[in-house]
């Protein structure tokens, strides 16, 4: 361990911070945006909606993200049709590839969490909506999904940390985010210890800040406490907090 190399590696890793944040946040947002329709499809009555999405989540949750990333980045480029298509300028960029692969992967996990949350709500909630005449859309937007999201908020916070760590795989497709920068530095200096210590600490710090941010959001949303805490009502409580991925 050399303090000189340690000090040298700080700016190296720091240079990758921006890309790490971009890949993490964009991948996370893409994942959340896709997870909602996928989660709803997983709970749909029609098998035509349910089965394709169930297959999709099975494939994406069941295979390593690194494999998915390679298929997307190196695999698709082989096909002329892909290179000629409108999406080529987007997926030609390794950063975009990483964001899409991470986003799709995260969406599959979160979709299952959302579907589980919906299934765990007491059926009386939907029945109350029907008896009041609320449309299907309003039932989802105003009653069911707000309860699901409040219940799974800790899982979503968890997912953000997982996506942060997954972003380190982007270095495998030449994205110079923090891990990529650290690897390049190692190749030059043959000193992996210091630079990866720095990278590890920075990942920890970012994850810590994400955690604080989520707890802040949790406290700000009205009604979270009203759902989570046990009251004295005789109502069976949804155990949605334990929604697992």
């Amino acid at each position, binding site marked *: 361990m050399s303090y000189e190399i340690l000090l040298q590696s700080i700016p190296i890793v720091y240079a990758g911070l921006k890309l790490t944040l971009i890949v993490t946040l964009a991948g996370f947002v893409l994942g959340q945006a896709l997870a909602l329709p996928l989660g709803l499809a997983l709970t749909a009555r029609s098998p035509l909606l349910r089965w394709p999405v169930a297959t999709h989540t099975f494939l994406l949750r069941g295979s390593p993200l690194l494999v998915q990333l390679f298929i997307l980045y190196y695999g698709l480029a082989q096909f002329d049709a892909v290179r000629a298509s409108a999406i080529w300028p987007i997926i030609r960029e390794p950063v975009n590839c990483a964001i899409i692969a991470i986003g799709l992967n995260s969406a599959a996990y979160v979709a299952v969490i959302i579907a589980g949350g919906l299934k765990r709500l*007491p059926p*009386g*909630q939907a*029945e*109350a909506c*029907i*008896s*009041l*005449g*609320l*449309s299907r859309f*309003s039932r989802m937007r*105003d*009653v069911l999904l*707000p*309860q699901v999201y*409040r219940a799974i908020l800790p899982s979503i916070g968890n997912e953000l940390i997982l996506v942060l760590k997954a972003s380190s795989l982007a270095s495998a497709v030449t994205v110079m985010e923090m891990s990529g920068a650290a690897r390049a530095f190692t190749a030059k200096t043959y000193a992996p210890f210091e630079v990866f210590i720095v990278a590890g600490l920075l990942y920890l710090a970012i994850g810590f800040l994400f955690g604080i941010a989520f707890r802040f959001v949790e406290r700000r949303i*009205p*009604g*979270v406490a*009203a*759902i989570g*805490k*046990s*009251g*004295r*009502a*005789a*109502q*069976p409580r949804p155990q949605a907090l334990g929604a697992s991925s």
Partner: protein
Amino acid sequence: MIVAQNLIKSYGAAKVLHGVSLTVAAGERIVLCGPSGSGKSTFVRCLNGLEERQGGTVEIAGHCLSADCANVLALAGDVGMVFQQFNLFPHLTVLDNLTLAMRRVRRTPHRAAEEEAMAMLARMQLTEKAASYPRQLSGGQQQRVAIARALCMKPKVMLFDEPTSALDPEMVKEVLDVMTDLSCQGLTMIVVTHEMGFARSVADRIIFMDRGTILEEADPETFFRHPSHARTKEFLRQIGTQY
């Protein structure tokens, strides 16, 4: 107001309703009782489209309900329902619980809906609970909020599915008082309950169901003093009603 004819409901092979018919005039107050598993809850849930049925017709508050309940939203609050488990929306305040359907279904403007809801809460003596969440209320208060929520839609018919069965004994009275109060205002009501004191003082007609059929229907006086079926007598004896 309600015409149900020959309702048949089964879960797979198990038949729950064997052709139940009931006609209720506007303003009539019906109490539905019977042993558990007799199909009384299922029957009222068929009336407002929460349960699909395998046969029979339902006409309620001017709407014909299809057997698969595809047009259930056409009832749009005209048929109010009060559940055993309250089914309040836990993430919304009491006030928002009341105004949600008014705003989304009746398209009442926000301010007007809140004013109406506050007036309704005042009627239920719950004004100071407007900003509370359901979990912060006692069971009796929650059930009164649930009744208020249904009433805000100005229903033509109110269905009560064992509204006091999940309550601690000391809270039963406050809910029954509210329901008695409602019954004096000409609202058409069907109440599934084991509260025979309430049945006796409020009902125009008491209906006794057993094993998926209506066994007996009579005015309270006849029902309690001269029940005609042995099953009715046994039921009254079992729940310990002394009249």
